[in-house]
């Protein structure tokens, strides 16, 4: 059976029509080794296409390579073999400088443990991605903070916020620069069920607003509704989960 994802099986909801391709992976493999030969294959000849605005869920056991997948797509890691394209531009041929530029402009990361900078205020955390791309207009950041329901928290330090609030700030930080791609690595993993649900709803809303593509790693069955396509990484192979789709 080919490992290529079956992109023609569109889901019932949130499936964009006739959108251009955003991400394409061609036979991407990643191996880790302590010697000359590969010992661990978190990714083995993975191929995938994702259109602009399209969403997917990535499932898999711990250590199955989900985060490696996100890192390669996000340009923070490089595959051992294979090619990754973003907007038809081959990421795997880019220099580390250009990859940083790609992350800076095109990708928004949401982490399980929020990873806000404790010494920056909420506002400073939020405007940091904008500053990095030379955008001095902070109105966008304020609007987005209001959109996630934390308009009053602009000058606060993250330590004064609850976990759910911190994750909301983290989501706003990921989206503030209008990235084309959002990569979320278990964004509700550190939150209780109710807060997790709120956060998922928020991710759904704000990514819809910006028409960003979303790849989300999760273990939570409650989060599966956010994307029509569910893939599972098993022994390095990417498989579409037919039963869930």
């Amino acid at each position, binding site marked *: 059976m080919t490992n290529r994802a079956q992109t023609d099986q569109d889901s019932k909801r949130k499936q964009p029509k006739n959108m251009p391709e955003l991400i394409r992976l061609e036979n991407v493999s990643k191996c880790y080794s302590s010697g000359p030969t590969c010992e661990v294959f978190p990714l083995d000849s993975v191929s995938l296409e994702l259109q602009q605005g399209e969403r997917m869920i990535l499932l898999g056991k711990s250590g199955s390579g989900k*985060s490696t997948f996100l890192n390669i797509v996000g340009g923070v*890691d490089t595959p051992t073999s294979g090619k990754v394209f973003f907007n038809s531009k081959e990421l795997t041929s880019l220099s580390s*400088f250009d990859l*940083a530029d790609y*992350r*800076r402009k095109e990708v928004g990361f949401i982490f399980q*443990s929020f990873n806000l900078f*404790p*010494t920056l205020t909420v506002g400073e955390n939020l405007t940091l991605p904008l500053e990095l791309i030379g955008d001095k207009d902070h109105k966008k950041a304020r609007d987005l903070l209001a959109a996630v329901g934390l308009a009053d928290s602009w000058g606060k330090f993250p330590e004064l916020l609850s976990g759910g609030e911190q994750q909301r700030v983290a989501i706003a930080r990921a989206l503030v620069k209008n990235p084309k791609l959002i990569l979320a*690595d278990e964004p509700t993993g550190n939150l209780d069920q109710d807060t997790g649900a709120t956060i998922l709803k928020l991710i759904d809303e704000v990514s819809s607003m910006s028409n960003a593509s979303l790849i989300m790693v999760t273990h939570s069955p409650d989060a599966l509704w956010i994307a029509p396509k569910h893939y599972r990484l098993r022994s390095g192979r990417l498989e579409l989960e037919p039963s869930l789709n």
Partner: protein
Amino acid sequence: MTLATLLKFNLRYYKKHSLLALLCLMGISLGVGIVIAVELINGSALASFSASIDFLSGKASHSVVSQYGRIDEKEFRSIWKHPMVSAASPIIDVMATTAETGSDSIRFLGIDPFLDPSFRGWTPQESDDTAFTSLLAGPIPSIYMSEELAQKHNLKPGAHLTLLKAGLEKKILLVGIIRASVSGNLSENLAVMDIASAQELFGRIGRLDRIDLVLRGDPETLRKALPDGLTLADANTRKATLNAMLYSFQLNLAAMSLIALFVGVFLIYNFSMFSVLSRREDMSLLLTLGSDTRGLVGAFITESLLLSAAGSLLGVVFGYLVAHFSISMVSSTISQLYYQVNVGGVHLTVPIVLSGVGVGLVATLIGVILPALEVAVTPPVLGIKRQSIEDRVSSLKKWLLALGTLFFIASVLGAWASRFSIFWGFAAAFGMTFAFALMTPASLSIFTHHLGSVLKRVIGSLIGFLAARNIKASLSRTSIAVAALAVALSMTIGVDTMIYSFRGSVASWLDGSLQGDIYISPDTTKWDHPLPDDLMMKLQADPRVASLEKYSTFDIYINDRLAKLRVLESELLKDKARFHFIEGSEDAWNELPKGSAFISESLSFKSGIRAGEKVRIPTPQGAVEFPVVAVTRDYSSDQGTVQIDRNIYKKLWGDDRVQSIALFLKPGVSTDEVKTSIMNDFRGLEKTVVSNSQMRETVLGIFDKTFAPTATLKGVSLLVGLLGVATAMMAILMERSRDIRVLGYLGLTSGELGRMNIYQGLIMGFSAFLIASVSGTVLTYIIVHAINYRSFGWSIDIRLNPWVFVETLSLTIAACFASSLYPTLKLMKIRTAPTLKEE
């Protein structure tokens, strides 16, 4: 779980963090090393001096010495015949050099060859053959020389030497050698000659420098019988008198060396705290596996002490090397400023090694107290966040600021209390340094917060903004490093400003004191070698010379304390010199010829005598009370100086010897021309005839040489401070790798991350500099008013030198850049890729 098991477990940690451990080890080594170096240097100087006194005293139980600089040889007979005296030997004791032995100073001992052997077995004996005859009645003065000195310059009996006396040459003959087997390990260069020859050769006819005695009964009986102005001193008293002169000099050196160790304590603390915090999970696991808190604390302290012992032993070796290479410089300074010492070398003894290790262990214990408490009181909960430590420091900084303020106030009070004891002066200096260290977390937090905003908004540097905020984010780490560096820098600024101010004050004093066009001032002036009479007569008759001022300085005792008596010509000087009067005024000059005296402020400070009071000066005609009409600023001697008119001196002492001369030339006369003609007429005076500016340079050269050791002390402190910065940056790198990765996810390149790290090092250095600029300036005031004045009795006009600040800043920035390079290279290798899932 046994201590051994825990230690074995912990050893793995040191393997993993070997670089940090090495930096900490170096910090301990440098701190201990510099303390040991100063201890060795001080100890060697005193030991050498003490050995010299013991050796030269021989069997003498006591010596008769004069409080007014000389003993009339007529006194000898009555002392010798005193019923309490079993044996007596008159001595001329004078330092000089010869052309053949170059710069080696030689102690010339004039003895009576028939009386002296009962004191010193090594002086020439009557049974000795022709050499002895030659010593007594040779055609030219003859000497015996110590074997080591003779061998060093390849001199053998029969060799003629050229004695350089006040710059003039006299021929002497080497007739015998004092064997090393009898002179032992004495490093003193020694020449022994007949006392009559010595008196003649050194212009001391009719006088003795001391009389060595073997007493058979109560010394008090003899003491009471001695003429006024002569005192009876045993060897210990003489040692104590001279050691007291060195006390302040050595105390200041020792205190400065402690600064390096003080800075080292910060480094130890930083490393220990890092090692505790980064092992918290391990420790929690060990507790769950059955270890107890006491065991963990014990293991932690033991491993710290083992590290400290290793560092201290390395420090002892380092200290020995520093002492070995700098002992000659320091002993030369002591010889220049106080008395002649010839230190053969430094000797590392078991007590010194133990004291080095002890000092290192104490410093370590101080440094690990808080980290050990951290181990002891933290509950065994897994997964405590690093952030919680920062939160704690963040709330603690207010208390530290308050404590720092209290220390500040206490230090100001300590500085005031220094008038009661110098101890309070040093306590104030250390307290003030510590006060600023305690204020560092709060001030660093505020500064980096605002600096970050300024860098972003005004300069548009996002990287600078992140660097500044990173420092704030790791305040528990960065504030210690910045505080340690600030301590080292404040010492640099404080001491450099003090030296600059001191130099400026000395230069002003020289301007006021040195008014002559030409000076004839041989090196031997300090050894009381009078200038030849014919030189004086010729110069007085020289039509190009407008006037001639004669100087002489002698050792005397004021209130049983050694001081200098300076003889000057007040009629001439009142128009020429511009003395800085602390008390009294220019009118005081008119009182000197009437029998009044000026005293230096150091003498005034040490003896408590003020203008308007009287100073009791011992003279050959008994003690005379001189009204003190002025207290002047005088940096020539920290023992204190009393200045009287030459005519008064002549009358009381019956002596008109001159040691140096200042010439005032008539208008239009060329200085070089007069200099050349003096040198042509008096061969041997080449090096001693100097112009006003050369004289000034010579004095300032001695000043600079005196403070040269401080450069080493400052350098080591600074090095320890910079090791602290490097350690902190490495620690931050390990602790904040998560944040660094997040920045990578947000799109920062490794170059930008590297730049951020360099900026971080630079901002830490700059912050330390800013703190040190304030604390260093405050420290200058404490050093000048509460330490220097209390130690030496010298007041100094404080002048801030912008270059001291510019140089310190440049050095700090360059050094912080250098010490952040390695952590930056490590940072640039951090891969962004590892996931950021768990805290």
